C-alpha cells in the first residue's frame, strides 16, 4: 500500500480548443505528473481555411484582402508583406509618400497588436485592470484605421504598388495626438505591472529560451530579442524606408517571459518614435507606383519578409507569368514560434503553460491559415 501510495501516475489533460487562455482555438494535450508538465502536443488546424490554396485561384489583386485574415490583429503588417513580395516580383517600388504612410500605419498596427497581447496576457495571469486600459488605447489606433480605410481589423489598407487610399484630412494631426497621448499610457501600464510582485513572480524565469535555442527553433520577433539577439528585419534588411528612421532594437538577456514583456513594452515606445519621425515628413507626391491595371509578374519567384509584431513574416511567391500566383507560401511567425512551446514548458507547472502561451503572442488565424 505505501509503495503504490507514493507512486505518481501520469495524467493526460486536454487544454482547449475552447479555453480562454489559449487565445483562440488551440488545443494542447498535456502530459502531467501532478502539476508538472512532462510533455505537450499541440493540435492545430481548427481555423485552417486553405489561404495558400485560395491564392492560387485568385488574381494577385483579389488575393490581397485574404492576407488580412491570417494575423487579424495585425492585418496591416500582413498586407504590407504581401504587397512588398508582389512588388518585388514586378520589380516596382512604392513611391515615397506611400512608403511613409505605410510605415505609420504598420507601426500603429504593431502598437495595436502589442496592446492586445498585453491586455490578454495580463488577464491570463490574473491582472484584470490592464485589459481595459489596453483596449481603451487600442481603440484610438483602430479609429485612425477606420478613418483611413473604413475598416478596423481587416483593413486591406495597402495596394500592390502603393496605397489604397490617400490619407484623410487631419491624418497627421490624429497620428501626432495618438503619439503624445500614448507614451504616458505605456508608463501607466508599466506602473501597474513591471514591479508588481505577483506579475514578477509569475513571469520571471518562466519559459526560458536562449538565443541559440531560438535560432534552432526558428523563433523570431520579441522572443528572439528577449534572448539577447539584437535582430530586427527593419534594421537588418530595411524595407519601405525604415532606414530613414532613427530607432533602437530593445533587447534583454534572460529570454524569459518577463524579459519578453519588457521588450514588447520598449517596442511600443520605439514604434511611437518611428511614427513621430515619419509623420513629420510625409513627402508629397503620388501614392501609387507604376503598376499596370492587370498585375502580371514575369515568370520567377521571390521571398520577401518583414518584421511583423510577432516575428519574421515571409511571403514566398512563385509566378508562372499569368495573372494568378502559381504558389504563395506564407511563412507565419506564430506557427513557427508555437513549435517552441513544448521546449518552453517541459518541467514547468501547468499554470506556467498559460503564461507561456500568452508570451508567445500567437494568433491562431495565422497559425492555421
Amino acid at each position, binding site marked *: 500500500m505505501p509503495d503504490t501510495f507514493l507512486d505518481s501516475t501520469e495524467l493526460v489533460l486536454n487544454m482547449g480548443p475552447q479555453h480562454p487562455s489559449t487565445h483562440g482555438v488551440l488545443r494542447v494535450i498535456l502530459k502531467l505528473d501532478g502539476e508538472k508538465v512532462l510533455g505537450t502536443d499541440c493540435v492545430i488546424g481548427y481555423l485552417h481555411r486553405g489561404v495558400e490554396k485560395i491564392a492560387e485561384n485568385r488574381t494577385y489583386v483579389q488575393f490581397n484582402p485574404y492576407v488580412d485574415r491570417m494575423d487579424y490583429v495585425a492585418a496591416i503588417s500582413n498586407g504590407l508583406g504581401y504587397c512588398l513580395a508582389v512588388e518585388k516580383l514586378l520589380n516596382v517600388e512604392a513611391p515615397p509618400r506611400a512608403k511613409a504612410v505605410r510605415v505609420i500605419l504598420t507601426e500603429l498596427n504593431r502598437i495595436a497588436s502589442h496592446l492586445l497581447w498585453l491586455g490578454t496576457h495580463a488577464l491570463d495571469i490574473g491582472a484584470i485592470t490592464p485589459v481595459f486600459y489596453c483596449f481603451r488605447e487600442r481603440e484610438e489606433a483602430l479609429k485612425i484605421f477606420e478613418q483611413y480605410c473604413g475598416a478596423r481589423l481587416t483593413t486591406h489598407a495597402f495596394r500592390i504598388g502603393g496605397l489604397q487610399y490617400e490619407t484623410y484630412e487631419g491624418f497627421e494631426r490624429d497620428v501626432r495626438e495618438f503619439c503624445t497621448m500614448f507614451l504616458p499610457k505605456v508608463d501607466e501600464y508599466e506602473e501597474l505591472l513591471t514591479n508588481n510582485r505577483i506579475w514578477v513572480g509569475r513571469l520571471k524565469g518562466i519559459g526560458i529560451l536562449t538565443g541559440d535555442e531560438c535560432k534552432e527553433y526558428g523563433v523570431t520577433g520579441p522572443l528572439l530579442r528577449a534572448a539577447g539577439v539584437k535582430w530586427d528585419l527593419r534594421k537588418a534588411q530595411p524595407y519601405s524606408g525604415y532606414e530613414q528612421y532613427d530607432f533602437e532594437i530593445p533587447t534583454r538577456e534572460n529570454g524569459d517571459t518577463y524579459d519578453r514583456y519588457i521588450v514588447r513594452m520598449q517596442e511600443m515606445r520605439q514604434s511611437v518614435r518611428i511614427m513621430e519621425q515619419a509623420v513629420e515628413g510625409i513627402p508629397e507626391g503620388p501614392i501609387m507606383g507604376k503598376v499596370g491595371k492587370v498585375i502580371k509578374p514575369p515568370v520567377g519567384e521571390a521571398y520577401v519578409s518583414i518584421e511583423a509584431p510577432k516575428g519574421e513574416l515571409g511571403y514566398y511567391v512563385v509566378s508562372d507569368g499569368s495573372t494568378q500566383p502559381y504558389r504563395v*507560401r506564407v511563412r507565419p511567425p506564430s506557427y513557427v514560434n508555437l513549435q517552441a512551446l513544448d521546449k518552453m514548458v517541459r518541467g514547468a507547472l501547468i499554470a506556467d503553460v498559460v503564461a507561456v502561451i500568452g508570451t508567445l503572442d500567437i494568433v491562431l488565424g495565422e497559425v492555421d491559415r
Partner: protein
Amino acid sequence: MADEQNPGGSEAPSPPGGEGPKPPAKPAADAAKPAPPKPPAPPKPPATMAATPWDSDLARAVKEQFGDGVLATSTYLGQDFVVTKPESAIPVLEYLKLEADFDYLVDITAVDWPKRAERFDLVYIVYSFPRNQRVRIKTQIQDGFEPRTAISVHLTANWLEREVFDMFGIRFAGHPDLRRILMPEDWQGYPLRKDYGILQQDVRWVQENLGIESGQ
C-alpha cells in the same frame, strides 16, 4: 478597387497596349491559295525565370564542396539560390550551417509542377545572422521520392516538414513524427497539389465527422 475586380463583368480587363502577342493579321494573298498543311507549330519554349548565375565566394565554395551535387547557383531579383540534386539538399543545408553560419532555417516549402517528371520543387530558405544573408536551396524531386528529414540539422524543420507532408504528400525519411498538422489526421488527399481542386474535399470525412452532406 472596383475597376479591377469584375471578372466576367462587361468590361473584362484587357492587357494594356503592347502586352501579350496579338493574333497576326493574315495576309490576303494567303487566303487565295489552298492553305498548305501547317507544320505543327513548334511547342513554345516554356517561359523560364530569368535567373543569372550567382557568383560569390560562398557559391564557389558550395560548388567546390559538392561538385555534381550542386546543379546551379543562381540569383534572381537579388535573391540567391542553390539548385541541388535531391540527395545533396540536406548535406548542403548542413554545410551552410556549420561552415557558413546559416544557422536559422526560415522555411521549408514545396511547389507542385504536375507536368514535370520531377514533380515537386522542394525549397529550403536559410538565413545567416552574421552575414545578414538569405539563401534558398531548391531541389526537384519525383512524386514518391522520400527526401531525408532536416531535423538533424535544424529542429524547426519538424513542423515545417509536417506541413509539407500534410499539404503535398511528400514523406520525409527519418522524420520522428510525420503526422498531418493542419488537416484532420484521417483526411484523404493533399490539398496543395495542383490536381486537388479548390472545391474538392474529403466527402467521406465531412459526412462522418460533421454530420452534413457536403462542406460546400
